[in-house]
């Protein structure tokens, strides 16, 4: 590792440490905004690990997130929380591996379509199982876990995701993914096992989404299928990651912060217009900033460097 990389790593760790102090100053509104931002940062960054280089748009986030949340909801009276988070990670990994193996060998369109309805499919299955077992559709999650603890867990997970993303970016796997994103035929011909590379990354993002759902379960004391498997979550994550810029590790963060605050304001003041906001954000990304805010900044920096000779 070069001196510059050590410096960047130190700066990132220091920034995480500063952000972790938030609960000491406010445990009300701003902490809840902080939890949302931390949650979307984890989800959008891990989404971009897979979808950024490969351009395979995954809409499965809500499905994995909901599964993680449900595992905690079902098991909280029986097993300790840490075990349940682990179980959620395993479940997310297994499910994403199955989906990846079934769809990622084919063209990207099949994958998008498959993930589009996935959250709704799992929601139907969960609701059906609950109805067949005669259980009520909701679950109570009563724990001693407070909001600052959720916040710190999410920050730790975010730190982990950034570390993993940074390692992948430097590895052969990361290089292979960038080639797949540029031209999959070229990737195959240079001897890359494209299916394996894609499935590995998809499993990582699915596992992280599952853990996130598990960590956030205690935030809602009452879980029901429509809350856990809300399909909007998948779309929000896609928008935030692309708005910031999915081709850089820190890109999604740039999209998460403004979008979380903006959608918070809009859903408080104009609750019926949140879908319009999502739609406008998608069109904005496609037509004006295809590489996100980070892409715009990079172009500006490049032109300035050229002008200065």
């Amino acid at each position, binding site marked *: 590792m070069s001196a510059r990389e050590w410096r960047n790593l130190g700066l990132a760790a220091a920034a995480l440490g500063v952000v972790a102090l938030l609960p000491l100053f406010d445990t009300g509104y701003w902490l809840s905004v902080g939890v949302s931002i931390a949650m979307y940062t984890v989800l959008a960054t891990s989404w971009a690990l897979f979808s950024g280089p490969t351009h395979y748009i995954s809409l499965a986030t809500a499905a994995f997130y909901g599964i993680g949340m449900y595992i905690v909801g079902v098991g909280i009276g029986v097993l300790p929380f840490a075990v349940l988070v682990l179980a959620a990670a395993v479940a997310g990994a297994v499910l994403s591996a199955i989906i990846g193996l079934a769809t990622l060998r084919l063209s990207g369109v099949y994958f998008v379509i498959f993930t589009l309805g996935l959250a709704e499919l799992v929601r139907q299955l969960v609701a059906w199982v609950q*109805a067949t077992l005669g259980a009520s559709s909701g679950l109570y999650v009563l724990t001693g876990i407070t909001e600052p603890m959720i916040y710190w867990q999410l920050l730790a997970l975010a730190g982990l995701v950034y570390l993993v993303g940074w390692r992948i970016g430097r590895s052969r796997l990361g290089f292979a993914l960038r080639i797949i994103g540029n031209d999959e035929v070229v990737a195959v011909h240079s001897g890359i096992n494209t299916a394996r590379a894609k499935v590995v990354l998809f499993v990582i993002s699915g596992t992280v989404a599952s853990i996130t759902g598990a960590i956030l379960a205690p935030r809602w004391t009452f879980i029901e299928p429509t809350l856990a498997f809300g399909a909007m979550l998948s779309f929000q994550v896609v928008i935030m990651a692309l708005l910031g810029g999915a081709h850089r590790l820190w890109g999604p963060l740039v999209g998460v912060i403004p979008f979380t605050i903006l959608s918070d304001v809009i859903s408080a003041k104009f609750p019926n217009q949140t879908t319009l906001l999502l739609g406008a954000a998608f069109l904005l990304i496609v037509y004006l900033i295809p590489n996100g805010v980070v892409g715009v900044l990079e172009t500006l920096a490049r032109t300035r460097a050229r002008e200065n000779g």
Partner: protein
Amino acid sequence: MDIIVVGLLLGGTYALMALGLQLQYGVARIMNLANGEMLVAGAFGAFWLYSTTRFSPFLSILFVVPLAFAVNWAIYRVLLQPLVKRAKSQGHLEVDSILATFGMAFILVGLMLALFGGRSFEYLYLAEPVEILGQRHGLNRIAAFLASAVLCIALALWLNRTRLGLSLRAVAVNPSAAGLVGINVAAASALAFALGGAVTAAGGAMISAFLTMDASLGVLFTMKALIIVILGGVSDIRGTILAAFILGLAETAVASLIDPGLTLAAAYLLFILILLVRPQGLFGRRGT
């Protein structure tokens, strides 16, 4: 027996909506994920005409179809053609069109929520029982099936028997070769996209005659239409119609034998099977 009749009746209306998507994806090469919203918009149109003027939903397509045609033509020319022009490859265009049509889908949902609110809507039209093979079925379902069948046949004849239909099929097979033999590919794609939107909206008007709809249902219909088109093989109209009947039967069987809440699971089961066994679809040709 009951399942087969209900499934076939449902499949007929599904065929219409899936043909719309097939025109848009097969010919215009746009993976239109706002397809279901266009269907709901068509259903809204039929509902609105019926509840204000008692206008028959089957005649309302006289208004719904031209309007949807014009709107979709404008969407293609203004929003999607720039994407087609800037795309470096088919994969690039797919990503762009998926994101752009998601945007359109959300904006359509937002507009419909603003106009009609979040409530679901239905109306009673031809809700009289008719007996087929000893079972009673709603006349509205049968009428919707017949009207859909007429539209499907008309569309198939038009595609197979006219010069314009031939040029559309040529673009579907190979856009650049179609351009070489003097077909205006841009105009043909715009026509296919607009026609696809109009057909889907007509499907929505039919479906609204017997199903309760609300503004957020679009994405489910998009899923169904996508699965039908993939199941049938993207380039073949016969495959799409057959696949629509298969999905209609599978959904009805699951709904009546296991649980009505699991219809999407039935669709997914078909989807997984076709992905694993025959990814090019029932009537599709294997790609190069």
